[in-house]
């Protein structure tokens, strides 16, 4: 046993991780080179064995605070982005984003604030049917994607927002959506069924409530 332990130790020293400062340089290079956010998992996979990208990121983020370029968190990934206050310098780089219809913008907001949400729920909130084109457009832009199916009759698909969505709007997570807390405490994110329709829904009901809560807590809380 003693021998074995020794062997393990030797092996570990063979694959010693680079110093933290060096790891920071590595994370810097990888994030810098990528236009897309890079997850901690991928950073670790690309860095030498034993590296701790999460720790290096803490240092790197600090280093870039207040700089012309910032290290920002996007979902469970990280990216470098120019500081928003310097946007006036970037006319040349500005990309025209496809103009979204009012319906698409509303649908997007509903998905973001109510996710995971079914098409029927979106329609209930908007009081109008959601056209296929609207959802398709958001899917195509990769701002929304399909989430888990709801455990209600028909097992309808749900929609959730994507990392691209977070990246586009500079959000660390869906929890950071503007006004989310206020909306929730005002009860405006509750799934409140119209009065008189409750008895009709039947057995699957408890499931719905449970599932919605679970889904939300999963997405919005730690």
């Amino acid at each position: 046993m003693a021998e074995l332990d020794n062997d393990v130790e030797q092996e570990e020293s063979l694959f010693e991780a680079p110093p933290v400062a060096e790891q920071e340089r590595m994370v810097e290079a990888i994030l810098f080179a990528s236009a897309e956010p890079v997850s901690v998992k991928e950073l670790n996979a690309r860095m030498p064995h034993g590296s701790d990208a999460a720790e290096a990121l803490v240092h790197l983020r600090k280093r870039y605070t207040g700089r012309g370029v910032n290290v920002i968190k996007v979902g469970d990934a990280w990216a470098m982005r120019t500081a928003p206050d310097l946007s006036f310098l970037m006319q040349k780089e500005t990309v025209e984003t496809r103009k979204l219809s009012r319906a698409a913008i509303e649908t997007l907001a509903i998905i973001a604030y109510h996710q995971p949400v079914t098409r029927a729920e979106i329609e209930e909130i908007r009081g109008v049917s959601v056209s296929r084109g609207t959802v398709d457009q958001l899917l195509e832009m990769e701002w929304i994607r399909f989430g888990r199916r709801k455990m209600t009759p028909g097992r309808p698909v749900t929609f959730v927002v994507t990392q691209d969505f977070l990246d586009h709007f500079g959000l660390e997570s869906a929890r950071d959506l503007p006004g989310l807390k206020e909306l929730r405490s005002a009860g405006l994110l509750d799934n409140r069924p119209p009065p008189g329709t409750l008895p009709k829904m039947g057995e699957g009901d408890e499931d719905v409530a449970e599932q919605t809560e679970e889904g939300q807590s999963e997405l919005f809380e730690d």
Partner: protein
Amino acid sequence: MGAFMGDDDFQEDKPSLSVIERLDAEALIIDVDGFEGPLDVLLTLGRTQKVDLIKISILQLARQYLAFVEKAKTLRIELAADYLVMAAWLAFLKSRLLLPPDPDEEGPSGEELAAHLAFQLERLQAMRDAAARLMARDRLGRDFFARGIPEDVTRVKKVNYTATLLDLMQGYSRLRTRDEFRPFVMDRDAVYTLENALERMRGLIGYAGNWTNISSYIPDGWDKDPMRLRSATASTFAASLELAKEGRVELRQSETFAPIELRAKEI
């Protein structure tokens, strides 16, 4: 998109409307297609109450909506079915709110229905506000920017070859026992057929006046390799028997395992 301009009161039964107000009222009706459904119309109408959405008078709203639908009808604007469904529902709600509650009546009360409609309006408005706040955020590609020259990650394909000890040993045993595999391969090279032997011997027996060992009829190249020799010997012996049967040769053997001798039969 925005069909309705401003927050001005929308009450067409008021006699003293300014021109602008009247235009707004027209716009509301004529651009009905610009609305995102009945709830949107209700929300727009609701704004004319100039109160917090929470304190909105649903009864007043119902009246406004019904007036809106009536007006649309007189202007011969075709309203989508869901606008009419909403009108019918609001007419029902209105009667519920106005009449004293019937204790025998089942289902939700007018107040409950009104409260839910108010909730729906408030929720839709909240989502619209949220959408506006969202769209007003600093946005990628407009306010902040990603790397302009992303460096592609080159994908290096590394092939890891593996083999097990069993592979290794099987490979080795395959080599060392190749001879043992031989019988399983039909080896034409080492087969001297009866036809071959007959053909050869028929050509030669004419000269066989004296007794000759049949093994001397085995062709060159078949007498060294044991496999080939075996095959050639067997075929030559069989061919000799065949020729004897035809009466063309005579065979003799002095004792068991002694050489078999052959000579042409004199005809």
